[in-house]
């Protein structure tokens, strides 16, 4: 077994940062000055180092680690050397992208983490900073967490409008909000630790090249997020976290069952070996092989919240702290997408079965996600459903492919979509976080155009991008890439069904975002200016500017994803 420690450097760096955060949190104690800033700083430095190391270590070449020797698998199939980890420039691109996106999420978390050490001060600050009724409902939740249930109990009517029943405050009254362990600020260490841990899973996932490493990586990505979700306020968070946990564990079990069945029938777990054994007809035609792959795929589709494995997402998104929701809707989904692409890429021989499955899932995901989003009144639920729909577009490109060559093109299209989706979504979440620290209704955004023009601008450009319209050109290229991919790699009537579903979903999607945009421009009776959260807003602004630049000149992006598919499966000629 060869272990290439250099190629593991990014993973080590991130793990090191994680430990540092833990130690710093212990060393600083709950009352240290600038505690949150220090912890976030350590996290940010860790992410930057990870990205930089990833670039430096590979230097454009490909490195492999944890390799096993050639052997002969059941059925007299000779297989060559295979490795569990591989780092090449495509993997580096994914890692760097993940680190940058995680930095944005960290920036979005600043206010969430630093608000509540002084509940009275926080109260004043919040009142100044939140929008309209969002202020009332978020304060209500805020106060309960700080232990001042008596004041807040009566206001739960506001919060519960979204349809989820809030119980009256179960928490004991604290003397004056300084109860250790009850405020977000005192969770700052855990929060950053968990976030980095999850990113670590994603970084590992990018270079994982065998099914078990892959599942372990995706679990590393997912497990910390249960805890992150539960760091939200009140019963909504608990409900979200529980739903998420149960569904996710079940999906992992299904994926593992698929992996085990596959191993039992073929003896292969490394992706290269999977591709090799599937090239033998007698094995590829075994029903158990197909069944195991479908099971594995289903498990991964859970992570993507693809229909029909989506039911957990809305409750979870709505309950989690908004920056965590931003993370779940973007990076966490990238993880699921990546795992899916890797597995399907290795099993490209089976695309005649897996392709239609993916296509049906994609169509259902696009339509259900966008249509249900149309009926939502709570902002986070709307974004949850629409993000389900959005990932459907990325799946559509994959579902059109019927051969491994076609699949590489499909991955390019899908990757363009996912990259741009992550960028735009992060901008949208950033704008929302900047003006509305806690999840609220769409109506809470009323009058935003007047009350915080910059945040409104970022939000509107982002939503236009999600709908695929100018001035959010980036989104336009995303839609274009997917349609091109589908038309290019698909054929016959299934392709046209996909195209039709895409067309309908794009239109429905626009209708969804128009509701939010309309709210932003609707005059509201509360006319005060909002003081947006600076860190979040500048991060969102940055994402928007990058999006606009990519929108005007998308060539570099298109060029870099062209060979992503073959790069990930190391089949580039």
């Amino acid at each position, binding site marked *: 077994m060869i272990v290439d420690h250099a190629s593991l450097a990014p993973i080590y760096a991130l793990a090191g940062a994680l430990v540092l955060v833990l130690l710093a949190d212990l060393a600083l104690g709950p009352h240290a000055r600038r505690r949150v800033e220090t912890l976030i700083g350590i996290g940010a430095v860790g992410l930057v180092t990870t990205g930089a190391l990833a670039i430096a270590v590979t230097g454009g070449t490909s490195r492999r680690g944890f390799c096993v020797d050639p052997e002969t698998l059941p059925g007299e199939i000779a297989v060559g050397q295979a490795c569990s980890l591989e780092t090449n420039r495509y993997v580096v691109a994914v890692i760097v992208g993940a680190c940058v996106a995680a930095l944005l999420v960290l920036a979005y978390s600043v206010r969430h983490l630093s608000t509540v050490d002084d509940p009275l001060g926080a109260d004043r600050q919040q009142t100044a900073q939140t929008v309209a009724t969002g202020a009332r409902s978020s304060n209500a939740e805020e106060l309960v967490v700080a232990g001042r249930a008596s004041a807040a109990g009566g206001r739960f009517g506001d919060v519960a409008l979204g349809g989820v029943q809030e119980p009256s405050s179960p928490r004991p009254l604290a003397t004056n909000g300084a109860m250790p362990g009850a405020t977000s600020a005192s969770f700052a260490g855990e929060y950053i630790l968990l976030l980095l841990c999850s990113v670590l899973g994603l970084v590992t996932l990018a270079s994982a090249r065998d099914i078990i490493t892959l599942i372990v990586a995706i679990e590393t990505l997912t497990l910390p997020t249960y805890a992150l979700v539960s760091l939200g306020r009140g019963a909504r968070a608990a409900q979200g976290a529980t739903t998420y946990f149960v569904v996710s564990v079940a999906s992992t079990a299904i994926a593992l069952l698929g992996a085990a069945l596959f191993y039992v029938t073929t003896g292969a777990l490394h992706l290269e070996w999977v591709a090799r054994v599937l090239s033998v007809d007698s094995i590829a035609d075994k029903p158990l092989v197909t069944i195991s792959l479908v099971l594995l795929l289903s498990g991964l589709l859970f992570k993507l919240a693809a229909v029909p494995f989506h039911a957990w997402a809305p409750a979870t998104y709505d309950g989690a702290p908004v920056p965590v929701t931003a993370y779940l809707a973007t990076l966490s989904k990238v993880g699921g997408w990546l795992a899916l692409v890797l597995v399907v890429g290795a099993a490209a021989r089976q695309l005649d079965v897996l392709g239609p499955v993916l296509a049906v899932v994609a169509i259902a995901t696009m339509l259900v996600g966008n249509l249900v989003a149309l009926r939502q009144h709570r902002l986070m639920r709307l974004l949850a459903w629409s993000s389900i729909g959005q990932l459907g577009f990325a799946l559509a490109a994959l579902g059109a492919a019927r051969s491994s060559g076609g699949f590489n093109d499909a991955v390019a299209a899908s990757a363009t979509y996912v990259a741009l989706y992550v960028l735009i979504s992060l901008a949208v979440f950033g704008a929302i976080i900047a003006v509305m620290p806690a999840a609220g209704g769409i109506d809470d955004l009323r009058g935003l155009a007047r009350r915080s023009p910059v945040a409104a601008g970022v939000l509107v450009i982002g939503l*236009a991008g999600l*709908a695929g*319209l*100018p*001035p959010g*050109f980036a989104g*336009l290229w995303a*839609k*274009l890439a997917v*349609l*091109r991919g589908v*038309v*290019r790699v698909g054929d016959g009537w299934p392709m046209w069904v996909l*195209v039709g579903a*895409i*067309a309908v979903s*794009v*239109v429905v999607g*626009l*209708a969804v975002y*128009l509701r939010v945009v*309309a709210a932003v*421009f609707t005059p509201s009776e509360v006319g005060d200016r909002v003081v947006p959260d600076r860190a979040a807003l500048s991060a969102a602004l940055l994402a928007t500017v990058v999006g606009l630049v990519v929108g005007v*000149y*998308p*060539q570099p992006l*298109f*060029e870099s994803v*062209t060979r992503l598919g073959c790069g990930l499966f190391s089949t580039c000629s």
Partner: protein
Amino acid sequence: MTAGQTLLVFLLGGPATCALLILVVPARVAGRLSIAAASAMFVVSIALTADRNTAGSGTIDPWHEINLPWIASLESRLHLGVDGLSWPLIVLTSLLVLCCTIWLASVERVHNVRALLALIFALQFGMVGVFLALDTIVFFVFFELTLVPMYGVIAGWGGAKRAAAARKFVLYTLAGSVLLLTGVMWLLVEAGTSDMPLLAERAGDVARSAQLGIFAFLAVAFAVKSPLWPLHSWLPDAHTEAPTVGSVLLAGVLLKLGTYGLVRVGVTLAPQGAKHFAPVLAALGVVAIVVAAFVCLASDELKRLIAYSSVGHMGFVLLGIATLNEAGMQAAQVGNVSHGLITGLLFFCVGAVKSRLGSGQLASLGGLRMSAPRLAAVLGFAAIASFGLPGLAGFWGEAFAIYGAAQHGTVWWWAAAIVAAIGAALVVAYFLRMLRLVVTRQPTAGAVGMADVITDLRWGEVLVVAPLMTAILLIGLWPGVVLDATAGPVKQIVEGVAR
């Protein structure tokens, strides 16, 4: 960079710069600045005729062009250029935008005028971009670019039901855009390029079955925009609710994006498909003419009537395009321009009437002849031009579309020509009804159009309507001003279809 290329840069860069600049200058100079800029754009658009390159021999020969690398992965280049087909529409766009800026600066008082002006310039940027695009992806991007500003204009400055109307407009049009994108992508995959001159040359190489599919997608996409019956139902609502300048640009230019696109992208790049589907298009065009005429005859609101009349007139244009012969295609080109001018004038008149009387209900209008004779005269002129009186711009498009259809000689086309001619007579009928109700009828009890309550045409309004009336008269008496420009490209396209 040649002089012509400089003009193209100005034509696109000017509106884009203005759209941003207007937002930062003080409100009191915004009006004058926008008039100055729009005038400059108009002069530039006229100047495009100078020093033009006429040496080319391809299907698409731009007078001036810019061709820069852009998205190599999609085989797409930033290819912009003006030729005989696009030039008249560019001039039309610049003229209508100029009229709109004068209207906003000196006639109608609206809230937040700077934002509205900025949106209008953004709209101009998109519209001119569509006409200049010589690459299908560039075309698509500019096509999309017009959507958002128009949504903003309707949603921000429209009537009472503006939100619903704007939403309907943007959703319908986006549906069309997705189909357009699909067609463009299909073409890209089949022909391996998105460059229009190249595609036009390679049009013969694309398999017939693919051409049929591609044309079907493009045709439906453009039919939503034009709009072609039965995909028109967004239009009356959007027009009724839009502010005057919004209606003018929507009917005057945005609808032309559909018909222009159908010729430039659809017929030119997928000629076999065009030939196959031409009878269907013709039939739909004719149905549009007749249906719109009947709706107009029964209409009880002035602005809705004018809006529906656009559906009918665009029906004539589509009939002309569907003939795929020189007479019909030329009629479509001149019809495009004249409808833009006439419907612009009509909407300005309606805007003037509604701003004075506060209502567009035909039942409550009347006696405009006595209360505001000059405004009544302009309205009368516009209506007469619209129903195609010889000597005014509307005549050529209608008459020669019918002639072009009849030229085919088959029963189907004769039927189309005859029904279209009956439709033309109905157009006369509903405009005369409108004139009777609004202009000549004695004001009845309860009517708001009482004599000497309202002012006649103001100076600002004269400045707006005079250039339009001049242009209508000019094209009516000398259609060559448009036809000479479009003759070359139309000949090439017709030959391309025949090949």
